[in-house]
């Protein structure tokens, strides 16, 4: 006690450090489970972040618009051309739709439910991104109230984004697939028997390996989720960038370029 009285400052700092270490240990044991207090804090922060993100997006859109006028002009021309082609495809698709409906009727009669799996989407805005440079966690503005649960898959128009790690009343933390904590079971889109495991490396790339050393995986192959583990089947992950054979592990190792541009992530959908 006498030592504590003589070294008040040091005692206070050491006590603070001890409290933090206890909090850390409890947090490691409990995992990412939140509580009422953290939920209130996070909800308040979500409101502030939304405002800041709105201002950021306005500045970003205007500044980028000014400096990339030529690029945008080219983009408009490309999109116009693409639009014309898509219109043609819609006409063709209308014809195919009738055939598809006939096939669906037939599958119902035969009790074949492969094509029946449908998801409910909850759309959300990305309001803040973890800036630690190591992890790739971001926060969205929808939570339990919108029916979001821990483990739900998150996608955007380009493909798989990640999974919900923690959820509050009106917010949810999402771990992206490029995070080092993220592991995905995948298969090749062209040959669904060829499967593998991929994991993020936080620098925007995903690396992985094929389960079978005789796999015919090649650069440019599109990878989709296999349906094993956290993510539902058929979500696009990305393209194979490089393929190398590791003679030590006797496995074909690959690097993958994610379909999603994580640097410009603003809107996502949570699959239910």
């Amino acid at each position, binding site marked *: 006690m006498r030592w504590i009285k003589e070294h008040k400052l040091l005692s206070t700092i050491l006590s603070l*450090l001890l409290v933090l270490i206890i*909090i*850390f240990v409890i947090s490691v044991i409990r995992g990412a489970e939140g509580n009422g207090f953290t939920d209130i804090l996070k909800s308040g*922060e979500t409101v502030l972040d939304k405002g800041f993100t709105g201002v950021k997006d306005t500045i*970003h859109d205007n500044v980028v618009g000014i400096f990339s006028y030529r690029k945008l002009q080219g983009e408009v021309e490309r999109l116009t051309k693409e639009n014309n082609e898509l219109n043609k495809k819609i006409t063709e698709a209308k014809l195919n739709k009738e055939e598809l409906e006939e096939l669906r009727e037939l599958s119902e009669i035969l009790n074949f439910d492969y094509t029946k799996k449908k998801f409910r989407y909850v759309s959300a805005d990305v309001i803040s*991104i973890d800036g*630690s440079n190591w992890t790739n966690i971001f926060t969205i503005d929808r939570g339990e109230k919108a029916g979001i649960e821990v483990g739900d898959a998150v996608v955007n128009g380009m493909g798989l984004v990640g999974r919900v790690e923690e959820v509050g009343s009106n917010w949810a933390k999402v771990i992206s697939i490029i995070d080092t904590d993220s592991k995905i079971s995948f298969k090749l889109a062209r040959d669904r028997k060829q499967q593998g495991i991929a994991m993020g490396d936080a*620098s925007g790339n995903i690396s992985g390996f094929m389960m079978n050393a005789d796999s015919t995986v090649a650069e440019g192959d599109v990878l989709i989720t296999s349906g094993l583990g956290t993510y539902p089947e058929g979500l696009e992950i990305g393209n194979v960038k490089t393929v190398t054979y590791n003679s030590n592990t006797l496995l074909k190792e690959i690097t993958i370029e994610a379909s999603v541009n994580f640097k410009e992530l603003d809107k996502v959908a949570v699959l239910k």
Partner: protein
Amino acid sequence: MKYWKATLIFTIGLLIQTTFLNLFAVAGHTPNLLLALVSVFGFIYVGKMYGIILGTVFGLLYDIFYGITLGTTAIPFVLVGIVLILFQHFMNVDNIINMWIVSVGSIFAFYLTSWILQVISGSPLGFLYMLKRIPITAIYTMLVITILYMILSKGVRKRPKSRYFR
């Protein structure tokens, strides 16, 4: 500086860190604004405990808002705060070179402690991977520290340890 002003600066820093700073990412790296604030506040305000107190509060808030395990940011901030208080006795806080020397130490101390805590909490981050990620972040954070130092040191009494001010 009064505590409420410092708290306001840290609050804005926390919000900027996770929204605006992503616009200025270089090769996927963004400066660690909170670490920069802890370093500058902890170093230039002699006799105050800004680094430790605000580092603890905002480190914990950061962990609650964006982290998975509580303490992985707060504990390194406290350690950085302690190191800064110790260095204040040996270094001249009016000299920017001293600020840079202290900053390099605090950046490496922060990331090393943070990495150890992340590994304990089950993260697969490798040591070499961590070392590879630090340099660009450190340079970027040093730049922010320099700017913050130049702004904030203007309002600080010169040579606080000088006998002429006693």
